[in-house]
């Protein structure tokens, strides 16, 4: 059994403070945390090789080092629990199973950055997780682990849960900050980066749930031990949400660098594929899809997946078998991104909707010749022209599904007897195919 750093308390009832404590919880608070200074702690996290687990994989220690403490403004910590990337459900389970580990991680981060007020931004659909967190916060306050003068250290921290209300884009950190401030969740231009001017125009650190939950283990066992669990450039372990055509879908923690097929086929993990593997989406719906052949070569760490021109992302593995239609999957994805575009930037607002309408005609047997190239052209044109990466998150599946399963798309287009006729421009009026 591999070492677990985040999910070790699953199924042990650690929601309750007493149980969590009996499993060694809040050990870092009572032992060494408050003896460490800010830069010792940041240095320690840097040495652990911990990288942001929300999707971008930015080194956590470096992110913290960008937050100034002498700006004359309060520093905010905002936990990104707006887990919305299709395929991802790890944070949901993590918060449900072990809410105190998240609180402990927040105290560690809060101490490192001098945070006085922290928010947990939870997506609105996760009401059960919100209830669990609120109950855990209540226990932590009652035990003197939160609030004023934590454990006699002179350090004070307040944590509030902020319930989102249903918008995928709020997982993007600047959109999340706008949403926290009571605005529509539309991303902001960077710079200024949140580290300098984020929530309430103050220095803000936005971290994913899983990132913070790795901190107690790192403090207890040391950064070198954590780093050694993974590969030289991707330290530690990662929690994967596996869904789709596997025998036992669920949340699994494995060391970085584990072969993808081991995760899918090991009897202790997903126990194998249902049917014959056709492809795998390795890191959430926006990450480029891998064919079965590529999946067999893939290792689960940032560098190995980047070498295959895809990404680890949030660790959402969606495996699908040969019975699944690539056309249907892409139609589902383009519809999603068109629905979730925040409407701020024209290329994304119009482009994702346009791509969605073309995909719907192809899927309903009304595709025309040239539609596929048109889609690729469209994707290339709305990538990298917007404030946030939502448009790119739509472009990657389009480019890769069509690129890797093109015969299937061509067969779908070929079903239209009228496929040779030119597209009539008026067909593309908004709403023409809804």
């Amino acid at each position: 059994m591999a070492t677990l750093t985040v999910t070790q308390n699953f199924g042990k009832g650690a929601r309750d403070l007493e149980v969590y404590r009996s499993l060694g919880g809040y050990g870092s608070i009572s032992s060494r945390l408050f003896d460490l200074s800010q830069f010792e702690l940041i240095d320690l996290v840097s040495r652990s090789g911990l990288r942001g687990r929300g999707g971008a994989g930015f080194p956590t220690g470096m992110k913290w080092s960008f937050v100034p403490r002498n700006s004359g403004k309060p520093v905010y910590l905002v936990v990104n629990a707006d887990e919305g990337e299709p395929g991802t459900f790890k944070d949901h389970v993590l918060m449900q199973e072990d809410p105190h580990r998240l609180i402990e991680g927040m105290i560690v981060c809060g101490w490192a950055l001098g945070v006085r007020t922290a928010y947990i931004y939870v997506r609105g659909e996760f009401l059960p997780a919100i209830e669990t967190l609120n109950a855990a916060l209540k226990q932590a306050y009652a035990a003197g682990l939160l609030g004023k003068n934590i454990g006699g250290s002179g350090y004070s921290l307040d944590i509030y849960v902020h319930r989102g209300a249903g918008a995928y884009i709020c997982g993007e950190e600047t959109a999340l900050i706008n949403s926290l401030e009571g605005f529509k969740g539309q991303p902001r231009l960077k710079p200024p980066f949140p580290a300098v001017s984020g929530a309430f125009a103050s220095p803000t650190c936005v971290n994913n749930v899983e990132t913070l939950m790795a901190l107690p283990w790192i403090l207890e066992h040391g950064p070198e031990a954590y780093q050694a669990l993974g590969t030289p450039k991707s330290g530690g372990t990662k929690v994967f949400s596996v869904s789709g055509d596997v025998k036992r879908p669920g949340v699994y923690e494995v060391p970085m660098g584990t072969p993808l097929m081991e995760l899918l086929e090991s009897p202790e993990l997903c126990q194998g594929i249902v049917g014959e593997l056709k492809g795998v989406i390795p890191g959430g719906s926006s990450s480029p899809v891998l064919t079965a052949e590529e999946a067999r070569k893939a290792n689960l760490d940032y560098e190995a997946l980047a070498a295959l021109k895809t990404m680890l992302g949030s660790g959402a593995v969606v495996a699908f078998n040969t019975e699944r239609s690539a056309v249907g999957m892409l139609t589902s994805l383009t519809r999603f991104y068109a629905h979730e575009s925040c409407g701020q930037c024209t290329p994304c607002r119009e482009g994702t909707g346009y791509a969605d309408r073309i995909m719907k005609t192809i899927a309903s047997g009304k595709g025309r010749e040239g539609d596929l190239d048109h889609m690729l052209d469209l994707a290339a044109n709305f990538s990298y022209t917007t404030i946030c990466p939502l448009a790119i998150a739509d472009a990657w599946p389009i480019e890769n599904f069509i690129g890797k399963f093109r015969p299937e798309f061509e067969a779908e287009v070929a079903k239209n007897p009228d496929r040779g006729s030119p597209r009539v421009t008026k067909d593309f009026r908004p709403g023409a195919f809804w």
Partner: protein
Amino acid sequence: MSHHPVHVEQPSDAEILPRLETPGVLSRVEELIRRYPVKRAALLQVLWLAQETLGWLPNVAIRWSAEKCEVSPVHAYGVSLFYTMYKKVPTGRFFLQICQNVSCHIQGAEAVIAHAEKVLGVDSHGGNTEDGLFTLLRVECLGACGNGPVLQVNDSFATDVVDGELAMPIGVGLDPERFDRIVEWCRRRAAELPEEPVRDALGDILVGTDGHPGATGASAEVQGSYAPPPPALAVTASNVEEGRTKVTWKAAPETTVLHLETRQGGGEFAEVASLSGKDKEWIGELPAGAEIRIVAETAGVRAKPSNIAKGIA
């Protein structure tokens, strides 16, 4: 919800406001606002509170929320439209949302949605059953992909009924039979309970805290010295030439002043030099065997002293 509230009959102010202007609701609003440094930031939570209280968000409730958070009504209205979970139209008692996104799609979401449409006799874009029990809506990712296709009944995830309760067993997705069982559960519950109990999503507000330090009107200054300033570290002393000692240390970048202090043979430490926070070393005359330490000061607050280094003759 994705459908636009074009032809919703709006209740009158007199009908809605008395339900919102109760002492219980108003004290919760006040507590929600105190979680944030500005009132506007509480808007999403106040809208949630109004929706919890009324079951949906008529325009008057949005205006009321705007007033409480001191934003313009149109700002609050825009926010309520941007987020899909604010119900701009009333729904049935059991609001059934079925995920149609990629993980659920490949596990057969379309077949389940088609089945649901047939069983309930409504369309899946927000259709209501005539008895007022069910609203059916196809939605994007609900964040429970390991249980695809997944369903939410109001705020609970459900893919089956186990021991008479809604449940989401590990790895079990929705299928037509399980959907039928859930519908049957809902009908039975409707016969037993007159109405759905409201679940509290906003928590015990401000347990053990006074809220955000700036929330009651003051500014960021109230945050004050939220944490002790970082101390200087790794102080070392070495001889550079006869009688002159070099002291080096590490200090956090935000340090404003460094106090170099010494003592001899016990006793009190006395300040020898006051240095800028940017300084990296100090060279000066110190008696042999003196104990040296540095106290960092950040924005007027002294940190705990550094380690003690021994001066060498």
